[in-house]
């Protein structure tokens, strides 16, 4: 979490009430990606909480990262992270994003996501249940609140 502490309360409130998310695949097998789309579809429908998946990192409050970071993706991940306006939260979805899972030791894997960018919440699971992804986003949004009380 970065950003000034003298922000207006209403910004944090609105961020919590309608967080916009950007989803980034850094080399995952797409399982977690499907589950992220799944939480947007009728069964889980996170638009109930105002969560909207955005097409551009410039619009995002929440960055959902899936997959181990591959060598080719590494510079792009850094660039996308720089593009996300601060303050933001980063959620690493899935075991690969948390710890590279079963891909550890490959020549093309750099490491888990938190080796490259700061991560606020980890959601382990292979893939995590959509319910766990919702829990992860909710836990991440708490970070906006915590910072304000500082």
């Amino acid at each position, binding site marked *: 979490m970065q950003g000034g502490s003298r922000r207006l309360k209403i910004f944090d409130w609105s961020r919590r009430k309608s967080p916009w998310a950007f989803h980034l695949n850094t080399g995952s097998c797409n399982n977690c990606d499907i589950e992220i789309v799944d939480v947007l579809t009728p069964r889980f429908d996170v638009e109930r909480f105002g969560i909207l998946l955005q097409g551009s990192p410039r619009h995002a409050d929440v960055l959902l990262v899936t997959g181990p970071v591959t*060598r*080719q993706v*590494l510079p792009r991940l850094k660039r996308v992270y720089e593009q996300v306006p601060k303050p933001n939260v980063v959620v690493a979805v899935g075991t690969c994003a948390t710890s590279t899972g079963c891909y550890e030791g490959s*020549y093309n894997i750099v490491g888990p996501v938190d080796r490259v960018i700061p991560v606020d919440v980890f959601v382990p699971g292979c893939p995590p249940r959509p319910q766990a992804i919702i829990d992860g986003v909710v836990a991440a949004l708490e970070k906006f609140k915590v910072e304000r009380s500082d």
Partner: protein
Amino acid sequence: MLPLTANSLVHTLSNIAPLVEKLRSVLGDRFQKYSTRNERRAYVYIRKEGIRECVRVLFDQFGARLSTISAVDRNFKFDVLYHFTIDQDGLVASICVSTPKQTASLDSVTDIVPAANWIEREIQELLGIKFVGHPTPGKLLTSDDWPEDEYPLRRIG
């Protein structure tokens, strides 16, 4: 349907026999040997100089589909298997060639079978087998900063 039998036993297969005969006559002394594993798997061993003719016969005359090409690192040489599927018979004919590791190169078949384009590029990238005459060699899978002369799937030795 023939029962499953042990390795390297030649099955009397009606659908593979004409193919093998044709390859034998086209390739001449470049044809080495032929074996089957079961009623759906045939392995034809040829010298690498004959690969283009062989692919042309399979693809143009027998309507075979190139499934994939597998390359195996055998320490001093590479075994390269061209897996062709003949769908009507449910048969996989694998054309096996080998090339020494020091000067690993094969003739590209991309102009005969366009589908070989990516498969050959991948092998060139991961194992370092040069495909002579490939129209668009270049990086496909490894990252932009991957060193040119390093091949991840090659064993040391």
